[in-house]
């Protein structure tokens, strides 16, 4: 497995507050890596250190085998960074903004024009290329914000909360762009506090809370390790979970019950068998509960990610 990013015992202190405390993780080449955590967890700080915007107080960051501090410019040439804020010149057109950002990476002339056309097509904004950015919707601004980081064809794209405050259509457009980039071999770091986005896009994740990485790995592995398996049952009759030995914990949700167990299939079989035998349950629905990152986060921290 080839890694493109290796972060080892990264530290960052803001006054008395530890923004990053011994953060360690690595990212596989060609993967979409999700950095998940609540607001203020340290995600943006980690992204900024990775791109050379902020200096670290300790630890090491290697990108494509290069030291991100000593070989900063060499790293920056291969990295595209999309900050959380929409950092565009509102009064200038999309084209002018792209020209500016392209110039920062030394792209000019015919290549710049070709790349501008390509990224405008990818973002679906080719027809608005000459309009001032201030006339764009929030979603369109977000798309151009990403496009500015793609002009130099980075091998690693870092996206910090790229979908904050946008409409579903733009969000889907951004998701399609990210999937397309990943399919074309670009490694992606996707920082967010939206669990659904990580679940929809990412292969590997690290969960960060209060400056510490509290879990990391392949998405399915995290579910297997940290999310409690469960069965959801909806019935019109009284139900007594204690009568099933393998149910560890139960509680009501919506119109039914959530039955936590390490053997969901076995529990489902037992319920169906009993119902078939004595017709004591009139079952409306029975299904396995799909684990979520919310469950993982809850299991690890005891608090909800949205708290």
């Amino acid at each position: 497995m080839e890694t493109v990013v290796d972060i080892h015992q990264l530290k960052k202190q803001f006054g008395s507050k530890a923004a990053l405390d011994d953060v360690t993780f690595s990212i596989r080449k060609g993967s979409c890596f999700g950095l998940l955590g609540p607001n203020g967890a340290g995600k943006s700080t980690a992204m900024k250190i990775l791109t050379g915007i902020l200096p670290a107080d300790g630890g090491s960051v290697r990108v494509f085998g290069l030291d991100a501090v000593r070989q900063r410019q060499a790293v920056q040439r291969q990295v595209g960074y999309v900050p959380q804020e929409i950092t565009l010149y509102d009064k200038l057109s999309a084209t002018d903004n792209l020209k500016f950002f392209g110039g920062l990476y030394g792209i000019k002339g015919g290549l710049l024009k070709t790349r501008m056309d390509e990224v405008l097509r990818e973002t679906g904004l080719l027809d608005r290329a000459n309009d001032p950015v201030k006339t764009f919707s929030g979603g369109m601004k977000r798309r151009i914000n990403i496009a500015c980081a793609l002009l130099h064809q980075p091998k690693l794209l870092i996206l910090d909360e790229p979908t904050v405050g946008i409409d579903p259509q733009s969000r889907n457009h951004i998701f399609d762009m990210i999937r397309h980039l990943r399919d074309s071999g670009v490694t992606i770091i996707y920082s967010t506090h939206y669990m659904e986005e990580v679940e929809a896009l990412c292969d590997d994740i690290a969960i960060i809370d209060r400056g510490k990485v509290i879990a990391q790995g392949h998405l399915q592995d995290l579910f297997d390790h940290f999310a409690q398996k469960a069965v959801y049952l909806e019935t019109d009759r009284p139900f007594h979970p204690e009568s099933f030995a393998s149910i560890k914990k139960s509680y009501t949700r919506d119109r039914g019950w959530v039955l936590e167990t390490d053997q969901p299939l076995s529990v489902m079989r037992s319920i169906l068998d009993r119902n078939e035998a004595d017709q004591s349950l009139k079952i409306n629905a029975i299904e396995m509960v799909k684990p979520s990152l919310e469950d993982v986060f809850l299991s690890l921290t005891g608090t909800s990610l949205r708290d």
Partner: protein
Amino acid sequence: MKNIVIKEFKLMIKEKGNFFFLILMPLLFIVVFGSIFSQTASSTLIVNIQDLDHSAASQAFIKQIGQLKGFQVKEDSRSSVSSEIQKIKKGNLSSLVVIDKGFEKGLRNGQGMIHFYKDAAQPASTAPIQAILQNMSAQYREQKLAQSLQAGGMSPQQIGRTLAAPLRIQPVEENGSRFDFMSQIVPGYTVMFVFFIMNSMVRRFFQEKESGMIARIQGTPLNPLSYLAGMWIPSFISVLIQCTVLLACGYFFYHLHLGNPFAVSLIVICLALCGTGLGLALALIVRSENQGLGVTQLLTLGGAIVAGLWFPSDMLPSFAQKIGYFTPQYWAMSGFQDVMIRGAGLGSIWKNLIILILIGLAGLALALIRFKPFVRSAAH
């Protein structure tokens, strides 16, 4: 760097406020104050007279005042002396000359009397009238002396020699053909408004910082010094354009005498370096945009007063003039006036140029020192 320069120029053009503050407003000031002061230069003082004597002597007296250049006699026979005095008390009239009844008779026996009523709050318009009245009184005295000497048997030549003053004053205007109020107003407001570039530099840097653009640019391979230079150069060029437009307007519309164009150009370049160097330093030193705008107002308006941009600095108290020597505005203004009014060349203004360059370089050096902390604060 070229990339940053182009972007900044595009933003400058889109920002209409820049055009207003750097070009339109100083032009407006030049036009308005130019009109006011050119009117002042050509205007005449009104001498309000009430003739209570109505004699040949009083009429001759009034006629003599009316013939003086720059004075115009106004007699209002319908109004009474008391009502005119009331007007002075209320500030509606600056002065009144009352030729008392019996003036002619009084002249004959050496007791002619006129009263000069004046508003103490308006010395600028009453002092010249009082001076001509005293001058005329002196003339009457000379006439009386001449008559006495003639009666004593002296010839007109002897009388002339006796009454001749031992001191003669010969006014010589060395640069009279070149000086007019526009030689004060055009360079004055040009220099003053150059320093308003500091406002737009402070605003631009804080816009870049607060929008997160500086942080984002830090994540690119751009050399930080290229960024700093890219932000400075457009301001420098815009000041050159500003000065060129304002001085050209003075030259074409008000016939401002520019003097040696090469020397004027060098002053403009050094002034641009000075104003934008200070602007760059200020933008990177202050903690907020408002603080930067406040400091700019203080430096620009305070400097304009003590440096003699609004009126000649020799009209100021000496301590204020001394403060003026510490402002770049003073050296720019005196350089302009030396070239425009006194016909000076490079040899006479080198000190002004060096002072402006040194202040500008000091600003740039300070900006370089402050750039890292500024960028660091922008990263959060």
